[in-house]
């Protein structure tokens, strides 16, 4: 049954969406809008948290102290981004602990890109340039998402993300200016990360069930294929500047459409990785689970200490 308050709430919600305004946590919103946001935002947060692993793999083997410091700062940023997004998602009525539980029990998804291994130092460059590049392309329009806390988190994240992409580009550039072996290493990393980074935009528009509704709600502003095209358009001149080739023999400029024609994307691979059968899915999830369980005593000790300190100060007296 629809109550008067609900009707009023829905009218107000529609008005906010139509006028390109923002929805705040305590505004009335349709249940499926709330559910859809919880799913998208928590997946986004999980991706940031799992995304620390492929890069953390190279911290101990970074080629210089400067590169190590940069990589640590970047991994720390990913943790921060995860936390901004978890906080924003909590405003929709799910607890942090529930989200953690969903991740470590394998019920929640995260971006399939993080299930690929990082085989060489050049992968740090390719991840920064391609993976963070694709993420920025996806995230800039999300700064205007209709759900205000999501938009606010994205503004903060996008500011920090541009350093990630530039440092990746610089790693590849330095390798491309190096020995033939270093150049081969850079090209090999680009070859392995190019296609998975294009898959980050999600399935093609005619096979993306949630997209249309997300666009009506103004959570998403551009379709998966539009964003993918835009991304490839920015990559081509950057690849030329680097002197690397993009591993798509069918990639060419289409004068008529004013965009690039791409070769076919292997969506079977995408579905396989998403279904948990990628090269590193089990390892990534196990490490997250171990970290959570190994950290239990720290969380408990900190809570016990806080309780003990609180008990020491009699109520009503200034500490």
């Amino acid at each position, binding site marked *: 049954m629809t109550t008067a308050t609900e009707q009023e709430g829905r009218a107000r919600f529609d008005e906010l969406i139509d006028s390109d305004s923002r929805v705040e946590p305590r505004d009335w919103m349709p249940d499926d809008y709330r559910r859809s946001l919880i799913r998208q935002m928590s997946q986004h947060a999980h991706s940031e948290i799992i995304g620390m692993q492929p890069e953390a793999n190279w911290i101990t083997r970074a080629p210089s102290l400067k590169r190590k410091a940069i990589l640590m700062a970047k991994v720390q940023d990913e943790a921060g981004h995860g*936390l901004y997004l978890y906080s924003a998602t909590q*405003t929709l009525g799910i607890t942090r602990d529930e989200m953690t539980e969903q991740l470590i029990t394998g019920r929640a998804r995260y971006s399939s890109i993080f299930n690929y291994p990082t085989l060489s130092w050049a992968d740090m460059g390719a991840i920064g340039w391609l993976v963070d590049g694709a993420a920025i392309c996806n995230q800039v329009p999300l700064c205007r998402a209709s759900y205000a806390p999501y938009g606010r988190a994205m503004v903060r994240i996008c500011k920090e993300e541009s350093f990630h992409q530039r440092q990746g580009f610089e790693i590849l550039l330095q390798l491309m200016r190096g020995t033939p072996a270093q150049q081969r290493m850079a090209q090999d990393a680009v070859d392995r990360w190019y296609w998975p980074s294009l898959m980050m935009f999600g399935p093609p528009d005619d096979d993306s069930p949630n997209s249309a509704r997300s666009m009506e709600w103004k959570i998403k502003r551009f379709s998966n294929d539009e964003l993918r095209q835009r991304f490839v358009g920015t990559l081509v001149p950057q690849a030329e500047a680097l002197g690397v080739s993009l591993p798509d023999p069918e990639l060419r400029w289409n004068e008529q459409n004013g965009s690039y024609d791409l070769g076919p994307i292997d969506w079977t691979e995408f579905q396989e990785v998403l279904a948990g059968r990628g090269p590193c899915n089990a390892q990534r999830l196990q490490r997250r689970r171990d970290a959570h369980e190994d950290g239990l005593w720290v969380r408990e000790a*900190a809570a016990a200490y*806080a309780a003990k300190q609180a008990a020491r100060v009699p109520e009503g007296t200034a500490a």
Partner: protein
Amino acid sequence: MSAPGASDSAHPETWPLWEVFVRSSRGLSHVHVGSLHAPDETMAVRNARDLYTRRSEGVSIWVVPSEAITASDPDAKGAFFESPAGKNYRHATYYTASEGVKHL
């Protein structure tokens, strides 16, 4: 009225939620930047430093338990914020007779 961000009592969080305010430089107010979980106020301030000031965004941090915040009711928006409506004589731009006269 209720505290924003307070957790459902059936599913209490392991650590309480804190709201974080950062003063970006001397002379400016502390501005709300976000929230975080921490076991106590000392850890909340330290976590806030790591989470919200990694690029020297601030010179001072406040943390407040989310539960301690009382908010106005968003549904009562119309009635609650009604009184200034129609009182545009409270703005300098209401007074136009002095147009062309300097330093007014």
